[in-house]
């Protein structure tokens, strides 16, 4: 292969994001999306949660999680638009979808950076 190919690498990120979403999201949503806000479980003590989140390993894991899940959902949604809505402007769709993933990744970096600096 002489040309650099992006599609296989995007697919690899899609797959990694899919595994992470499958394994991490159920418990994260159950806890942070439902149990804690609705009071099924007592929300964690703020200082403890802050300490856990600012731990360097947590920041690295969260970075990987959010970036790869963003790519996963963008990649999947792109093909859903092709096959579901039969949108023919394929390049536009690809740019919008991966563009959104890039925005998500930048936002992730920004949030985690502020979190890390403030700790």
């Amino acid at each position, binding site marked *: 292969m002489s040309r650099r190919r992006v599609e296989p690498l995007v697919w690899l990120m899609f797959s990694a994001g899919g595994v992470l*979403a499958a394994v991490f999201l159920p418990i994260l949503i159950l*806890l942070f999306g439902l149990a804690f806000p609705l009071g099924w479980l007592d*929300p964690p003590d703020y200082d403890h949660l802050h300490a856990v989140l600012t731990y360097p390993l947590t920041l690295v894991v969260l970075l990987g999680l959010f970036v790869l*899940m*963003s790519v996963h959902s963008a990649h999947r949604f792109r093909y859903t638009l092709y096959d579901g809505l039969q949108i023919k402007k394929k390049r536009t769709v690809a740019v919008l979808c991966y563009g959104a993933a890039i925005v998500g990744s930048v936002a*992730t970096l920004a*949030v*985690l950076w502020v979190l890390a600096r403030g700790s």
Partner: protein
Amino acid sequence: MTDLRLYRPRVSTWWWTRKRSYLLFVLRELSSIFIAWFVVYLLLFVRAVGQSEAAYQRFLDWASAPWVTVLNVVGLVFVLLHTVTWFNLTPQAMAVRMAGRPVPAFHIVAGQYTGLVVVSGFVIWLVTR
């Protein structure tokens, strides 16, 4: 076949409603929307924790609003659909061999559910201790 007029059928926009397997496939693909939502939701959560205890409390209050709760419940259902279908498809997507023999699909699926349980247990422990 120079003058032959081939009939080319058009694919309906609703092709995916015609068969149960197609419908399940599209629902599985639509889980991507909810995964994107949860990335946003969790990012907002992390940001709130980074700001202050008051921001954390405000976020929890906001998250208990009916529309957020409904969205999270629906989203959780779709995420579980993603998890179950992803685990079931993995044996078909990868030829896993151990000690020179192919690993049976059941083991691969069971291994993934084990991973799910371990990760979930770890997160619970990490957050509630």
